[in-house]
């Protein structure tokens, strides 16, 4: 996976991970960001040419002050794709927060995408199925919320973290404030910004991939998306909210099958 920085027309410097072979696929990460040597991207790159931009506020991507509301998040996404200058329309995929942004992008510019893949996407809200409060979740509680296998989650999310080291703690708090401060613009206090009223506009064929035991965005939300998007199929596979890290091969298979079909 190659790491580079691209500049958007708005002036943001965006960290980009790219590589692989196959159809072009833009992947928007979720609220926890990408992982070091991200295992999902590595698996995906065997079947797709991946472009994974990092959201402003995450890692060293800049421009968070220019992206405040749902329209600006969606336009930022389009700015990034414009900056990639791809010869073909890419497949657009997103997980969690990235799924919410991807859905907004496809609703705002329905002719830009033929295929859309949403994995455990946020963006809808049902009073009877409240999404847990990510912003009141302590770091050590996060793996159990995000993963079906909390131990795997612990390993992937918290490796190398030592909260007793004051220097680490300050760095962590700064990074967390940058990341979650940015995510909060779309997700706080309730991760809903009117997407349900715009989903009808999506023309892309859509795959909805959900973890069977997603505790953050429960699997019932897949059907809620399906009911609002013109052409959508639901695929539930074993795992929690981070299903593509827990059932990586199965997730990639679904994506390959969907794109081929």
């Amino acid at each position, binding site marked *: 996976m190659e790491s580079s920085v691209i500049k958007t027309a708005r002036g943001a410097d965006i960290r980009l991970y790219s590589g692989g072979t196959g159809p072009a696929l833009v992947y928007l990460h979720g609220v926890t960001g990408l992982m070091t040597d991200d295992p999902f991207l590595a698996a995906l790159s065997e079947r797709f040419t991946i472009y994974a931009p990092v959201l402003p506020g995450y890692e060293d991507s800049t421009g968070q002050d220019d992206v*405040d509301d749902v329209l600006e998040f969606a336009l930022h996404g389009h700015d990034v794709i414009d900056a990639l200058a791809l010869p073909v329309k890419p497949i657009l995929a997103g997980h969690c927060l990235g799924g919410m942004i991807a859905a907004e992008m496809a609703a705002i510019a329905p002719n830009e995408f033929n295929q859309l893949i949403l994995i455990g996407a946020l963006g809808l809200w049902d009073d009877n199925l409240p999404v847990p409060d990510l*912003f*009141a979740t302590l770091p050590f*509680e996060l793996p159990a919320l995000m993963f079906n296998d909390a131990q795997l989650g612990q390993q992937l999310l918290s490796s190398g973290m030592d909260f007793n080291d004051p220097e680490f703690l*300050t760095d962590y708090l700064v990074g*967390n*404030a940058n990341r*979650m401060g940015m995510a*909060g*613009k779309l997700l706080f206090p309730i991760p809903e910004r009117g997407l349900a009223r715009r989903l009808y506009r999506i023309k892309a064929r859509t795959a909805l991939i959900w973890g069977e035991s997603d505790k953050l965005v429960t699997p019932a939300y897949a059907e809620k998306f399906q009911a609002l998007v013109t052409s959508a199929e639901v695929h539930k596979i074993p795992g929690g909210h981070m299903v593509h890290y827990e059932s990586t091969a199965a997730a990639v298979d679904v994506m390959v099958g969907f794109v081929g079909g």
Partner: protein
Amino acid sequence: MVSKIKERELAVKFTWFNLMPWPHLPENFREEHRSVWVDIPNKLYDPVEGHKVYNTYLGQLEYAEELGFDGIGVNEHHSNGYGMMPSPNIMAAALSRRTSKAALVVLGNSIALYNPPIRVAEEFAMLDVISGGRLVAGFPVGTSMDTNYVYGTIPAETRPRYAEAHELIKRAWAEEEPFAFNGKYNKMRYVNCWPKPIQKDPPIFIPGGGSLETYDFCLENDYNYSYLSFSGYLRAKQLMDGYWERVEKSGRDMSPYRAGFAQTIIVADSDEDAEKYYREHIDYFYNRCLHVYPGFADAPGYRTIKTLKAGVTTQMTRQAVGNVTEMSWDQLIRDGYIIAGSPASVLEQMKKLIHSLRVGNIFCLLHVGNMTDEKTRRSSKLFAEEVMPHLRNEWPEYAEDNRFWTDPLPQISDRQAVPAVGGA
């Protein structure tokens, strides 16, 4: 009376403050509930008992004026078991008609939460006019618990909204013709503040918790910076030193009236009596009232990166406050969490507080936790009569500095303050 007001203006200011805690949190509160704030279930609140509690607390604030305190203080919290004033302006309005001398120290309105914030300009103006110019206007950013978790403000928007609200309120007070305000969060075609306050520039107090930007904001505007901490004056020293360093660097004068501090104070006939009669209420406050779930303490994005890099984090977790309930009485006093004892002991500790923090405003937390009315009044009376008079003249070189206090009408008009029913 004029001379009395004059005398008050030229001395260290004491504001009698009541946080208005719910005094009936169950003994096993800490075990049964994760937080006193945000998600504390309101089945723990009994409105009939609440009627008594509110009126007792308001009575104490009125009594504080009788005792000669310069100000009586109220503040704003939401969904909070130790702070039952979601609308401090309602409390101040109730007090404005029952008092005639004390400043109404509203500390304050979380201006980012009022929509549109012109509401604060209007209500504060109303309070200032009703009270004859006795308003001290507090503009806190608001805690993350109140502002983000309870009222739903996006953390990253908290400070920009605050800054915009501040600009709008100040302009609304200053302008004499309607004007249009094109803010990011507030679009108003006709900003037109009726009434406007009696005091041309009501004194503005900013309660802060160590945000560096807040120091500069206070200095740029000549606002009072007040540190409201529950861990006492000794642990506040480092923060206040940082503030004064900033004042000095800015080239401004070092008037102690630029700063204030809140301190838990208990006065009894003897040191022994202070512990004997008041320890249980200290324990109630620190054990039950300050039981805040760490997940609510600091929404990511609420603090600025600059402040986080300076290592400033929340003051509200047990780790930050310290495990007071396991400390001996002597240690509580030695470490400055509380100032307590006989009048002579309290006087000595108060002098240390005033000079070590360089403050001209003291917010006296003389009601603590579930303290009874009788004990509260007794301690307050001893403080007012035997301690306060000896602390008035601690900053003689700044005796002329009245920039940071109220400028009321010389005569509180045609009306008399309505006596409290069954008043003391």
